[in-house]
């Protein structure tokens, strides 16, 4: 640790916290291979267990949170993290909308635990996997499963410069147009969640000849009803449409509502 004699470190401090997740979003920080050494020149990463043994106490200027809240311990921890972080940013689909593990939210979690574990009584877990914002106020949310490392870089640069990060909230369709992709739905009848999904990936799946599966979660004002109607026109069954909305951002309210509508419609029929 820096001695008292050393010049005061003016760099903003960053802490990286992990909740229920796959580690992929925080890994994005290390995936900024070319920029990494410049980043650590501009900010002081003081708590990042995946990368360092040094774990300094808060308060921190920026707290980056990966993962969703799934245990009692995590529910307490997120309160501490909020108290210690001047600015709190969620990294990716788990922290922003509960992640793939939010699929438990429509099932009996005790039954699920019994499916996976031999002695379920050792497992302490919550019924729901919830996003950070359901527990504490969040200052900024980075979408994606995983996040775009360039959006992370933009967020850090903007924060250091004292400006608002330039992160678009329009749909994947805009990125497809910009890449000159032929629309898969129009040309091939491929179901694609692009129209209701927030941009950020660079229209990756359509560029690889597959429909978008919505890993950046709902865009600002998604017309999910029209999306459902379109999927039905393309011959998709309601269980298929339900599953399409229930992946990595299943608990984001717009996707959640859409999937429940399809599910209930199915039951009503």
């Amino acid at each position, binding site marked *: 640790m820096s001695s008292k004699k050393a010049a005061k470190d003016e760099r903003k401090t960053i802490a990286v916290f992990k909740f229920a997740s796959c*580690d992929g979003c925080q890994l994005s920080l290390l995936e900024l291979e070319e920029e990494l050494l410049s980043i*650590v020149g501009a900010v002081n990463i003081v708590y990042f267990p995946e990368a360092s043994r040094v774990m300094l106490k808060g308060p921190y200027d920026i707290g980056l949170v990966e993962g969703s809240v799934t245990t009692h311990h995590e529910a307490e921890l997120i309160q501490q993290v909020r108290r210690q972080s001047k600015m709190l940013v969620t990294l990716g689909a788990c922290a922003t909308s509960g992640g793939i593990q939010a699929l438990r939210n429509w099932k009996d979690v005790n039954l699920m635990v019994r499916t996976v*574990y031999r002695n379920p009584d050792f497992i302490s877990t919550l019924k729901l996997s919830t996003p950070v914002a359901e527990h504490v106020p969040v200052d900024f949310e980075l979408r994606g499963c995983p996040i775009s490392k360039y959006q992370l870089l933009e967020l850090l640069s903007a924060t250091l410069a004292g400006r608002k990060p330039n992160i678009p909230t329009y749909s994947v369709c805009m990125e497809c147009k910009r890449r000159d992709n032929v629309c898969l739905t129009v040309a091939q009848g491929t179901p694609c969640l692009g129209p209701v999904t927030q941009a950020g990936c660079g229209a990756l799946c359509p560029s*690889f000849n597959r429909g978008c599966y919505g*890993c950046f979660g709902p865009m600002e004002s998604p017309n999910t009803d029209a999306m459902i109607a379109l999927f039905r026109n393309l011959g998709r069954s309601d269980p298929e449409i339900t599953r399409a909305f229930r992946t990595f951002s299943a608990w984001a309210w717009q996707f959640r509502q859409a999937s429940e509508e399809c599910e209930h419609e199915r039951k009503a029929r």
Partner: protein
Amino acid sequence: MSAKQGKSAGDGKPIKVDYLARVEGEGGLYVQLKDGQVQDVQLRIFEPPRLFEAFLEGRHYTETPDITARICGICPVAYQMSAVHALESILGTAIDPAVRALRRLFYCGEWIESHALHIYLLHAPDFLGYEDAIRMAADHRALVEQGLRLKKIGNRLVAVLGGREIHPISAAVGGFYRVPSKRELCALVDDLRWALDASIATTRAVAGFPFPDFQQDYEFVSLSHPDEYPFNEGRVVSNRGVDISVAEFGEHYVEQHVKHSNALQSRSKERSSYLVGPLARFNLNYDKLPEVARQAASECGLTVPCLNPFQSIVVRAVELIFACHEALRIIEAYEPPPAPRVEAPVCAGVGHAATEAPRGLLYHRYEIDSRGLIVKARIVPPTAQNLKRMEDDLWHFVPQLKDRTAEEVTWQCEQAVRNYDPCISCATHFLKIRIETG
């Protein structure tokens, strides 16, 4: 319960690491000593359970590679590969030879990216005495830059095939959604040639690190293929005479509930803990390595069997050489397949597959119904298989550290765990978790 035991046993101070750094995921370490004798070793895993096997039930088989990738952000390709092979074995899909080659190439990218991450950013700081690679870069900038560039090249390879480095989107049952052109792959050749040289340099550099004098009589387990260093297929073999098909894996290697750790840990049925990963692959498949990799290994005095787990960093570097060499070989021979993927009619059944994730053998088993929906899933990740072995290493390693300070012992124990490049995020989707409150 164990907290009480800990207190009553305690003459010596326990070695405690509440939060293991430079591993993927959340785990802690607890070693209880009495009169220099180890009383208890616990790798405490407090990574929250995510229940993947449970919520895979009822999903369509085609979604499986995308969903299982999310078990691990560091080795998503491994999860996609084990999943597609297991499902293809149910459907009887015969993949095109070019697709097979592309999958090996995909894996090369992940090995390069993951091994470079571990060697340079996670493990090397232990040997050179730094808290992390960022602090190490202050004195060894060229070394860290070399590691970052290697990692970037691995990532680029994954991205060319899969669209992005983390949770790539192109792998599918039957092949890929899109396959690259020859030209796209050839654009990687210069970088890969540099990476091959850098890997040889890496091997030499890490072979010069100071290694504790520590050897164990391991049971090594890995895939084995008659002609290739193993990635996507082969039989499961061990140096204790095991030679079985992947479908028999579940009969020979079982998970047990161990009282002192409250964690499900894999063991071989007849014996006990075993080791998967680079050390196992190297020792069991040395003759399948290309000449350039074997030569670098022997120059550095690395011979078969290598029984010192601390030298796994050198073995990882040798595997880097292999992965770069193999990638170049595949690109040179590549001709795009007639179709990116083949589709087979859905049928009910059970399928198994194992592939070699960077950290070791990754086993998947699926049962699907006639609609293609998953009825049952089972996933055994490499770190879960190595957990018991990590604890066993500590049982034997700690007594060697008698004269060291507490801080040194703690650091060395952490290093001994990091030898395995553990990925706790992977392991925990089925591990027993208990947070000790008492």
